[in-house]
């Protein structure tokens, strides 16, 4: 394997992060987008949708990731849907591609529309293992990073550090690591359709697994 990681060819990989207002969904989308656009060098568009309420209501962030310039910035057929609330899961499941992956927070989503899904109790993990429920979104980021074959752990963590104030960086990196570890344990590898080449974007970074 060459020293310099080769960028995996992507053609409109569509991803939706959804849940409730206050869960940090848009921050999560912003960090994920920043890391993939600036750290990894992909073309990324991140759009957001939220209600007019100051708090509560639904919230979602959509990302399109591509090796080529992106025309339409929103998503139509999802490769990955992350649902952190039952409502979001119900509303957006139908936008998944036939081979798309559904990732849910099992502590928030009781009924999944299918039994083919990747689930972890993110909210419970953030509360019990990290001790701060607000780290939920970064925990999810860790799990998403594991699942995306073209996303590198180190660069993702760098984006987390750049986006958050120093006071809360450490605890969030802890949450990121936990999310990544749990996902590696329970999710298995990324779906084969997402892997175009044997050579993954960040093969060299796997060695530094914490």
């Amino acid at each position, binding site marked *: 394997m060459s020293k310099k990681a080769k960028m995996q060819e992507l053609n409109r990989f569509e991803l939706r992060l959804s849940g409730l207002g206050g869960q940090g969904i848009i921050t999560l989308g912003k960090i994920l987008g920043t890391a993939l656009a600036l750290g990894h060098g992909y073309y990324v568009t991140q759009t*957001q949708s939220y209600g007019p309420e100051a708090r509560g209501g639904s919230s979602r962030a959509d990302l399109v990731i591509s090796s080529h310039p992106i025309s339409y910035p929103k998503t139509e057929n999802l490769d990955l849907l992350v649902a952190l609330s039952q409502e979001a899961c119900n509303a957006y499941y139908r936008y998944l591609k036939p081979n798309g992956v559904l990732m849910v927070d099992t502590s928030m989503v009781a009924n999944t529309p299918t039994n083919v899904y990747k689930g972890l109790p993110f909210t419970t993990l953030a509360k019990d293992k990290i001790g701060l429920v607000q780290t939920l979104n970064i925990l999810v980021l860790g799990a998403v990073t594991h699942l995306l074959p073209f996303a590198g752990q180190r660069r993702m963590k760098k984006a987390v550090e750049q986006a958050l104030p120093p006071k809360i960086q450490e605890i969030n990196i802890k949450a990121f690591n936990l999310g990544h570890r749990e996902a590696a344990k329970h999710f298995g590898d990324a779906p084969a359709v997402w892997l175009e080449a044997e050579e993954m974007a960040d093969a060299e970074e796997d060695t530094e697994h914490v």
Partner: protein
Amino acid sequence: MAQAKKKRTEIFALGNEAVVEGALIAGCTFYAGYPITPSSEIMEIMAARLPRTPEGVFLQMEDEIGSLGAAIGASLAGRKVMTATSGPGFSLMQEHIGYACMVESPLVIVNVMRGGPSTGLPTSPSQGDVQQARWGTHGDHPIIVLSASDVQECLEMTVRAFNMAEKYRTPVILLLDEVTAHTREKIFLPEPGEYEILERAVPSVPPEWFKPYEDTARGVPPVAPIGAGYRTHITGLTHDPMGYPTQRPDEINTAMHRMFRKIDQFFDDIQLVDEFLTEDAEIGIVAYGSVARSARLAVTKARERGYKVGLITLKTLFPFPKPSVVALARKAKCILVPEMNMGQMSREVKRVNNGATRVRTINRVDGSIITPSEILKSITQV
């Protein structure tokens, strides 16, 4: 990671952030505004950035009427000024937009369109303010309305908006929609000197010879900044070359025609479009704002299926880029106009088309963007 080659600064930014970057590059030193979703980030970032620049002044005003009033004052005092708002605030600004046209105050108004009428849909996209931007204020008046469809273009068009405002001494409206304003994308910040930055003409004569609204070859009178020693009378009443109210038909006629002429004679410079695969197009699409991006994907997909489709993205909405659209209408058997309103730009397309070809509209007013598949479906149905 070996990143050997030198790259331009790239940032992952919102459309609204790009507008601020563009304004600062263009030399904006004054912002007065009142926050409103979905344009609030422009004001937030201006509040953080502008006071750190030399001479930068940021004001939060009591409402949008006051905001534009302050902007007009600062502009006539020699500043490059901007304000940003959305539908409800834009309605409040209409009176002062007319005033700005009459006193010929260079300024940039950003309107990030949201669903209307009234409070409507604060967080949802729309393109319902297109005709309001052109004709919202009363009286015959020329105005320049620009648009942007992606984040890099937000930066570029803001710079152009300032340049046109200064060059033609006129208010320029930059119409964005919620999707463009709230999309994050990787953009390149231009190197200093990469964009041409225009400055307004200032008087070259001594104060006693100065006529504030004198006709010139370009039709654009030089602006003497208030306080620079030049006697300037500013009024919303129709005025003579000295700036004083007049009732004389000959003076009124000259003033009105000069105001229109200063824009009309530079249509080539002002009317900007982006053409995509239009050379052999049998089906034409005319779009603007975020919908143009949907249309672009639809064109790419339709071409793969063998449809000869081309797209004109309007970067200037008014004065309407007639030459490009007419050229498309002459060769296409049908023109599609997708937009997030009940058909405001399609009126203009139909007007210049003048029966040359079929014009079909795709309209959506439910607070959602028109998707590429909707446009693709219409292409296959032509």
